C-alpha cells in the first residue's frame, strides 16, 4: 500500500532501467468488481507485472494484450464481463464487468 512499491512507481523505475512498459487501468466497472476504477496493473516487455485490475481473473488476458500494445504503441480498450464469451473463458467469475485501458509508457 505504501507509495514506494506501488505499480506506478514500479512503472517509472522499469522505464528508467530501459524496459518497455505498459500501464493498464480499470476505467469502468459494473456490478460486482473486485478492484475499483482507477486500479493499475503495469506490465513490462517480458511479461513481468505488478498490481491488479481484478481479483486475478483477467490479468493473464490483460498481460497478453499489453505485450501487443508495447509492440505496436497503440493503446487498447479491453472489456471483460460475464456476458462476454472471452470473459467466460478467462474467468471473471465474480459476475461483474470491467473496462480496462492499456497504454504504452512513452519516453
Amino acid at each position, binding site marked *: *500500500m505504501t507509495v514506494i512499491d506501488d505499480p*506506478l512507481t514500479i512503472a517509472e523505475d522499469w522505464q528508467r532501467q530501459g524496459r518497455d512498459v505498459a500501464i493498464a487501468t480499470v476505467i469502468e466497472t459494473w456490478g460486482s468488481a473486485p478492484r*475499483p476504477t482507477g486500479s493499475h496493473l503495469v506490465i513490462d516487455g517480458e511479461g513481468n507485472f505488478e498490481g491488479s485490475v481484478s481479483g486475478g481473473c483477467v490479468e493473464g488476458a490483460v498481460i497478453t494484450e499489453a505485450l501487443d500494445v508495447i509492440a505496436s504503441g497503440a493503446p487498447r480498450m479491453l472489456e471483460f464481463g460475464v456476458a462476454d464469451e472471452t470473459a467466460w473463458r478467462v474467468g471473471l467469475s465474480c459476475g461483474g464487468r470491467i473496462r480496462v485501458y492499456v497504454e504504452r509508457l*512513452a519516453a
Partner: protein
Amino acid sequence: MKLALLEKLNAARRARQAVVQIVSLDGGEGLVIVEGEATPDAFAEAVQSAFLSGKAGNVDVEGRPFFINAYLPPPRILAIGAVHITQALAKLAPVAGYDISIIDPRTAFATPERFEGIDLVADWPEDVLRERPLDAYTALVAVTHDPKIDDFPLADALRKGCFYVGALGSRKTHAKRVERLTALGLSSTEIDRIKAPIGLDIGAASPAEIAVAILAEVIAAYRCRSLASPVAQAGAAQ
C-alpha cells in the same frame, strides 16, 4: 502516457499532495494536475469533484472521451504514546495499509527494543510536529494518558483537520480534557470530533484488542467520511 507525466504524478504522491490525472481515451495528450494548479476550464468541474471524492470517473469533453483518475495521499496514523497499545497498533496498521509513526518524549517508553522496525521518535510532540506537520490525511491517536504530552497534538490535529482524532481515557478524564482544550481556544464543534473513549465499542479488554478497536475506528472515519468532512474541506483548501 508520457514518462514526464508519470514522474510528475509520482513526485506529487511521494510529497503527499493530492493529484489528478486526465487520460485521453482517443489517443490525445493527457494531463496531470497537482492540487492547487490551474485546471483547463472544460475539466474544472470533473477535476474538482475528483479531488473531493478521491474517486475516478469518465467524462466527455467537447465530444471526446476522457478518464479522470484521482490519487489522494494514503491515510496514515500518528500515535502519541509508545505504550502497550501502540506496540500492537504498530503491527496491525501496516496490514490494513496505514503507515504509522509513534511519538513519545518518555525515553523509558520510546525504546527501539520495544518498537523494532517502527518509525519511533523519542521527543516532544510540539517539536516533532513542527518538522512533520499533521495534515487532513493523518489520523491522530493520543494514548499516553498524560495531558502534558497528549493535549498539544490533540489541539493541533483538530486545527489541521485530521480525519480522525482519538484520545484514550475514561469519560471523566475526557471531561477534564474538554475543559483544557476549551481553554486553549478550541470550539465545542472541534472538540466534539475527538473520539473518546477511543476505539469502536467491541468490548476490547487487552491492549491488542484496544488496538484493533482503534484501527477499526480509524478505517471507519476514513471510509465513511463525506464530501463535507474536514478531510475534503482541508484538501480542497490547500
